[in-house]
């Protein structure tokens, strides 16, 4: 008798990565079940939660934080043992964390993917850029990415780079006055400003409206111009996938022939369900994915699961320029300075990205003035003066994978479902510290050029919420968790759709690459199932 399965493919996690894979499989006629530990929440509720929040700079706050599906800011979600307080802002609801990303959607470059062979550091990807390019294209169409077809994204002022088979689906939005002026003055000293490709569409796209500058990409776009994973969760359902909410996977069950036989999930009232499928995709993000593998004792013959944790750990600069620039008009990010994206220096230190933040700065401005006891009419005058001149630069660094940067199931804490939370050990290496010194020299230049008054130029290391390396991709079963197709070496029917597979971090935000890889996973599985 033929084996009966609950679905062809079960996908764990309804974030941007899981949902894109689910949609691609469902539209090819495969039967798909998506398990999501959170609930589906309409945008207007999140928006109202934000507007009535007393901690608006806390980007997890407007989102549900249930004992059985806690966000990453919940107490004991992560216990840190390293010298850096690693704590990204991960969410638990249909659509996942991209509800409050900023939708920067860069591609890696060919050199990013061959770091070891080009510069002798870190690791190479087992696949190259040409292999990924068609999937980047499909991912950009899925997300409605606005981008420049003429920029050299290596930041050297050369020909358009990296290579593209087709133009960006949406043209770039107009640069703000703030961006234009900084580019004019800082660019005059040779720094290259590059438009940030982004999924904050400025033309109607796939049912989403054009951005109208509500300036709240993080923590919630009020109009849904900015892409979030719920778009494809809904598309997947419309194409026939079944989405089960309040369903937290806590165990992958091994079956015959090295295959995964079933997934066990638990609901908030404690009910357990066992579901079988021909294929499984774990798309529970770069932290929850390795945790699930480790507590299930699967896919770890290499002992690499949960190691090599990389964020684009960063630092920041804020200063007051000598002229009114009026940040806060338009989208909260627009692009930045890319001179340190690629070059021979990567043998010595990490690549560096300086991104301009274009957020309405009134809260930061006002808090600073209040701290200085500035009140009354002077306060009102200064708020206008300083808000017009506020420059905020968010800098990120390339990371190298290290065995000692780990995420492990906690041996102390459990969530309300009885599932262990996490322990993270993370520190920043000298490759990054050397780049930090270079970035600080840039900071001094930016301040000098803009004749600025420094507000903060020594923030220490900061989280950037890009989780990579934790289920690393490689070319042998001994040194990696998945192969170049995101298939686990140990289990032929288990794939991982997460930025956690990324073996060389580059300096650009990783999610577009994750979506491209997920679409590719769906193509691979669709051929086999």
């Amino acid at each position, binding site marked *: 008798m033929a084996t009966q399965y609950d679905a062809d493919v079960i996908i764990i996690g309804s974030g941007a990565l899981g949902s894109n894979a689910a949609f691609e499989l469902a539209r090819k006629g495969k039967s798909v079940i998506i398990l999501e530990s959170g609930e589906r929440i309409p945008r207007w509720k999140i928006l109202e939660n934000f507007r009535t929040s007393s901690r608006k700079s806390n980007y997890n706050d407007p989102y549900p934080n249930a004992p059985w599906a806690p966000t990453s800011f919940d107490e004991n979600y992560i216990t840190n043992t390293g010298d850096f307080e690693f704590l990204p802002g991960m969410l638990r609801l249909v659509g996942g964390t991209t509800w409050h990303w900023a939708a920067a959607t860069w591609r890696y470059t060919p050199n990013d993917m061959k770091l070891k062979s080009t510069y002798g550091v870190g690791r190479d990807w087992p696949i190259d850029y040409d292999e990924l390019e068609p999937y980047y294209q499909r991912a950009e169409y899925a997300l409605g990415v606005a981008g420049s077809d003429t920029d050299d994204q290596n930041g050297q002022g050369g020909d358009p780079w990296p290579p593209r088979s087709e133009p960006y689906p949406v043209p770039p939005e107009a640069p703000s006055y703030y961006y234009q002026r900084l580019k004019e003055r800082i660019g005059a000293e040779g720094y290259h400003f590059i438009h940030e490709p982004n999924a904050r569409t400025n033309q109607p796209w796939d049912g989403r409206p054009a951005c109208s500058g509500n300036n709240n990409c993080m923590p919630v776009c009020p109009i849904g111009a900015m892409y979030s994973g719920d778009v494809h969760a809904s598309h997947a359902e419309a194409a026939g996938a079944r989405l089960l909410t309040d369903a937290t996977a806590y165990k992958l069950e091994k079956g015959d022939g090295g295959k995964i036989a079933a997934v066990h999930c638990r609901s908030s009232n404690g009910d357990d369900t066992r579901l079988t499928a021909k294929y499984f995709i774990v798309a529970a993000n770069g932290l929850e994915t390795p945790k699930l593998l480790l507590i299930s004792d699967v896919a770890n013959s290499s002992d690499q699961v949960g190691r090599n944790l990389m964020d684009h750990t960063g630092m920041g600069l804020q200063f007051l320029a000598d002229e009114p620039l009026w940040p806060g008009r338009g989208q909260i990010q627009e692009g930045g300075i890319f001179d340190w994206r690629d070059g021979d220096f990567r043998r010595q230190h990490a690549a560096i990205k300086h991104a301009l933040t274009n957020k309405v700065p*009134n809260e930061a401005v006002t808090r600073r003035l*209040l701290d200085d006891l500035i009140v009354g009419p002077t306060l009102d005058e200064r708020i206008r003066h300083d808000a*017009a001149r506020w420059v905020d630069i968010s800098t990120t660094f390339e990371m190298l994978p290290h065995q000692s940067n780990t995420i492990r199931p906690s041996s102390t804490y459990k969530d309300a479902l009885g599932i262990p939370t996490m322990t993270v050990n993370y520190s920043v290496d000298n490759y990054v510290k050397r780049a930090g010194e270079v970035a600080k020299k840039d900071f001094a230049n930016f301040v000098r050029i803009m004749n600025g008054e420094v507000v903060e130029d020594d923030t220490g290391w900061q989280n950037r919420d890009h989780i990579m390396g934790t289920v690393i991709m490689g070319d042998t079963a001994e040194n990696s968790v998945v192969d170049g197709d995101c298939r686990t070496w140990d289990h032929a029917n288990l794939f991982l759709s997460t930025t956690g597979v990324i073996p060389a971090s580059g300096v650009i935000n990783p999610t577009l690459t994750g979506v491209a890889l997920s679409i590719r996973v769906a193509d691979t599985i669709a051929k086999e199932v």
Partner: protein
Amino acid sequence: MFPDTASSKTTLLSPARRLSRRQLLGGLLGLSAASLMPWATWAWASETHQVSEKEVANFLALSERLTGRESLDAKIAGRAYRVLMEAGEDFPARQRQLAQAMEQAGLTDMRKFKAFAAAQDQTVVDTAMAIISAWYLGYTGTPQGHSATDDTRFVTYTGALMFEPTIDATVIPTYSRGRTNYWHTPPDTLATD
């Protein structure tokens, strides 16, 4: 702009508010005509459910003086007063201490606040800043960026005074002021900013 003279006191209150305050305070004003804030010696509620309209009105008057505004929103005042009390039940007493200190120092022009603050107990300064912060930022307490909980309390969003000085140039985030790409050009006021 606000000369520190007796006549300037009235400029802090709109005619309508002056009337309602007179009604509210009734004969008491007469008892202490020279007093800026006669209620500074009254008894206060010790729990939020006891808060009276009078207390909120008095908090509003003090808030208007501290922020240099003539007509703050009474509903927001009610919320701010209650959350400040929630954050510290001694708030009414501290507010009274502040009002008395301001009265003694004759502080009406908030441009002179720093000099005033330098001569006061830290608690007086903290109380003043707690009230001013609540109005400007729209919350009380200190937000924690990476925690599910902190000691903040919501007061107002669109009513937060920090948005007033720039409202013609930038948005209150989540609201929109124009169409796609409006941001390409600077605000009209650029030359005088």
